[in-house]
């Protein structure tokens, strides 16, 4: 299958108190079109840093990232912004909706900023997304008036409004209780089945069990890979979870 994203010898070094901290060390990675990829690993191993670097939010120190046939290291700030805006979607653990905007505004802002389509059409698509994620009744709400799970689903709508080729999710369920987490995962599952590539970082085995391929990171490198079949029904979940757990145990999770 075709790769949508490829990282080659990716390195990231932070300078902190005049000392170099190598967070990503010559990391190699391929993400296939349409797949649901999960990244796991101990805290501080560099998972978030990996996401920031392959999406061009942060400048890599060395190596290359190719996304949709474009070398990110050769693009300037504006071009990277445009790629993130139009071709990538992001979901964060802290949810990170814009504080002073309402739910609907948070969802449509990326599309309005892109300015490629009629505003009516954007609104229409936003409504569809909200229906799909089950928050259609919140169009007029402020972000202070809804639950954490609903917020994260709104964040997913925001990530999808520009019909991105890939969705990055950094612990999308990290701040949610288990039933809200389930809701969010079933939404992600649904959009993956509809064709959106997902790359997700998680600590949670139950969450990771929704993905079809799991990478295990230790200390800035990918140390292992585990393949599951594409998720089809909820009934499989228990089984996937336990097989994944066994593998993770071996990896030292």
């Amino acid at each position, binding site marked *: 299958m075709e790769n949508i994203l490829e990282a080659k010898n990716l390195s990231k070094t932070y300078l902190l108190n005049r000392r170099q901290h190598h967070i990503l060390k010559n990391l190699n990675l391929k993400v296939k079109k349409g797949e649901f990829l999960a990244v796991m690993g101990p805290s501080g191993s560099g998972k*978030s*840093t990996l996401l*920031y670097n392959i999406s061009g*939010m*942060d400048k890599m120190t060395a190596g290359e990232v190719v996304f949709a046939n474009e070398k990110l290291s050769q693009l300037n*700030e*504006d071009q990277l*912004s*445009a*790629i*993130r*805006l*139009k071709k*990538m979607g*992001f979901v*964060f*653990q*802290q949810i*990170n*909706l*814009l*504080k*002073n*905007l*309402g739910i*609907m*505004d948070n969802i*449509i*802002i*990326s599309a*309005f*900023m892109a*300015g490629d389509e009629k*505003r009516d059409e*954007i*609104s229409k698509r*936003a409504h569809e997304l909200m229906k799909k994620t089950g928050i259609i009744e919140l169009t*007029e*709400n*402020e972000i*202070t008036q809804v639950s954490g799970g609903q917020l994260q689903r709104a964040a997913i709508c*925001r*990530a999808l409004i520009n019909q991105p080729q890939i969705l990055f999710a950094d612990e999308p369920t990290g701040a949610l209780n288990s039933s809200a987490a389930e809701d969010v995962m079933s939404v992600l599952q649904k959009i993956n089945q509809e064709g959106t590539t997902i790359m997700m970082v998680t600590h949670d085995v139950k969450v990771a069990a929704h993905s079809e391929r799991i990478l295990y990171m230790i200390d800035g490198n990918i140390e292992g890979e585990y393949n599951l079949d594409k998720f089809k029904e909820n009934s499989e979940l228990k089984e996937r979870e336990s097989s994944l757990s066994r593998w993770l145990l071996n990896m030292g999770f």
Partner: protein
Amino acid sequence: MILVIYKIIKNDLLKKKVIMTAVFIFIMLSALLIAGGSRMLIDLNNSINSLFDKSSAAHFIQSHTGELNEEEILNWSREKESVKKHQISEMISIDGSKIFINGEKSESDTVMDLNFVKQNQDFDYMLNLNNQKIKVNKGEIAVPIYYLQRLDLNLGDSMKIEGDKKQFNFKITSFVRDVQMNPSIISSKRFVVNADDFEKLSPLGESEYQIAFQLNDLNQLQQFRDEYSRTELPQKGPTIDYQLLKMANAVTDGLIAAVIILISLLLNLIALLCLRFIILLTLEEDYREIGVMKAIGIKSKKIKKIYFYKYLFIALTASLMGYIFSIALNKLFAKNIALYIGKAPESLIQVLIPFLAALIVALFVIIFSLIVLRRFKKISAVEAIRMGSRGDLNINSSSFSLFKSKYLNSSIFLGLRDVILRYKLYAVLFIVFILSTFIIIVPVNFLNTIQSADFISYMGVGKSDIIIDIRQSKNIEQRFKEIINYLEDDAEVEKFSPYITSQYEIINQDGEAENLMVETGDFSIFQLDYLEGGAPLLENEIALSYLLAEQFNKKVGEEMEMIIKGRPQRMLITGIYQDITDGGKTAKANIEADFSSAAWYTINLDISGNRAEKIAEYKQNFEDVKITDPDEYFQQTFKNTIDQLELLTFSSLVIVILITVLITSLFIKTLTAKDKSQIAVKKAIGISLKNIKLEYITKALFVLNLGIILGTITANTLGEKIVSAALSIVGAAEINFKISVFQSYIIIPLLLILFVSLTVLWSLKSINDLSIADINVE
């Protein structure tokens, strides 16, 4: 525990380095200006007193042209108990075309009366720049300060007066500090020459006498005036008294000092606003910590104290530094005063009062911070811990949603929306922009007003192309008629109107007779702008100047009594006009001229041809007249005032730009620090830096433009009122700003917009490197 508190304070100071610095600077500038301004007022007062003392200023001066019987005057004043000293001095008024000051260009264009005098014997001395009595030897001359400044003269420069046959050369050995004719707004100047030279110059010009008195008691001045005017003693010419002299000397610098103090107060206001902004910001940021401190039992008083000490420290040190700088800048503030009025001996008060003024600035700040800090009490421990930071919006946002907007650019929309929803946050910026606009526009408008041709209407004169003043001489009535005949035959004269000013007795507010110079003639030809009512047309009508109407407590439509040809007559007041000449107290009536008591003759005319040529022609054909182009007259008499105003306008422009840049950058930096995580999220989801910056520029420019609009409106209304109030002292109670559309509505707003935009862009540089990676680590 103390440690925790100090950690908070330290953090607070570090995090708000920029804004704290700004507050410091504003307090300092405010202290500097108020100390400087008050010092200037004290200097002005001291210097004037010293000048009046050293020169032994006259209390009452009657100018007179024509016959003079010295004996009569001497006898009269000897009998008068109130008179301490009297003195008659002669001045020779020589036409400017004969006078060359340090060069080959004559003073033919001057509007000044150039008078040559000997040093006075008994009082009203002319002083040099060291406030010593001027002594001049043969061939030497002392030149008024006005020319020192205007022509940039040096001691040793030469001056030439051309007679018909002979030429007189002088060397300038002193500059005249002249208590009587110093101010540039007085259109007469005195040159001092040796007695021998005086005799030689005598045939070159017209003689004019000054009959001067010093009284034993200044309180008797008004009474003395009236008594003198009731005598048959010479009075063909204007009078000047002690009060008028003081005011003429003080008005320019006094106004400047007042403006400086006003600006200081505005700066202080800005400092207070910034302080409020910081305190509220601190509260918001430290809300939780303060709550925790309360929860573990620290009294809110104690917490408050710690914050308070910080502001106390800043207020005191900043004011002190402002005061110290003001000492250094003192020379600049007092330059004009030192030149025109001279230096007085230093006194303790000169040091003490400005110091106290600076302290008052500090006191303002301290009291204000105490008031704002009262909010500490309102923080409840539980609430603070549970909520963390308090909500940010002042208005419910759902009514103003991006998704409902149809066409507006999204960044611009978000910028506008933010200003409206968080309006309290932007209040500081808004008020600063209003003040900034106000502080620039008012002086610019006033400058344009004073420079406009219409300003002549504040001098109680209708607008005309040329004014002819006919000097007193024996056959003046005859010459007056000749000139009128000449004008009647001149085809280029479109219209003209002669005026004769004579002395009349009127019954004043106390029911007593008082002498008043009344200009007579037809006032419908050259229309004056009246504050109320209109020109006096009928024989029993009169118009009063604003100050006179104030003094008599009369309004349009009321009547007053006037003695005409020995018989009392009731006069209807038809109009009140503004006049800053002759101490502001004048009157106009369309009654038959009284040639016997006529003090001066003028003719106003409009012509169709070239003004300069016409003036030259009349100068050729008429003798002993002063022919002025009113615009020119104005330029020269108000030169010093205009220069001072220009300096002030320029300084306020620079100060305002500095303030605007400082506050804007401060504000944007604070705002972006506050919005840091929001900006990082926007960048993360792919909103371009360009769009984010556009949003912030929109915010700043939106607030700026509102500020400019409101600032301009207040400048044109309130500013006009303030200027009018200040100038009503000298007789102009209703200044109408002449607004230069180009300067006030185009250049200044564009300048502000440019500086604000650049500042915003510059202040937004820090968001270039902002990344969500940094935010989420925190």
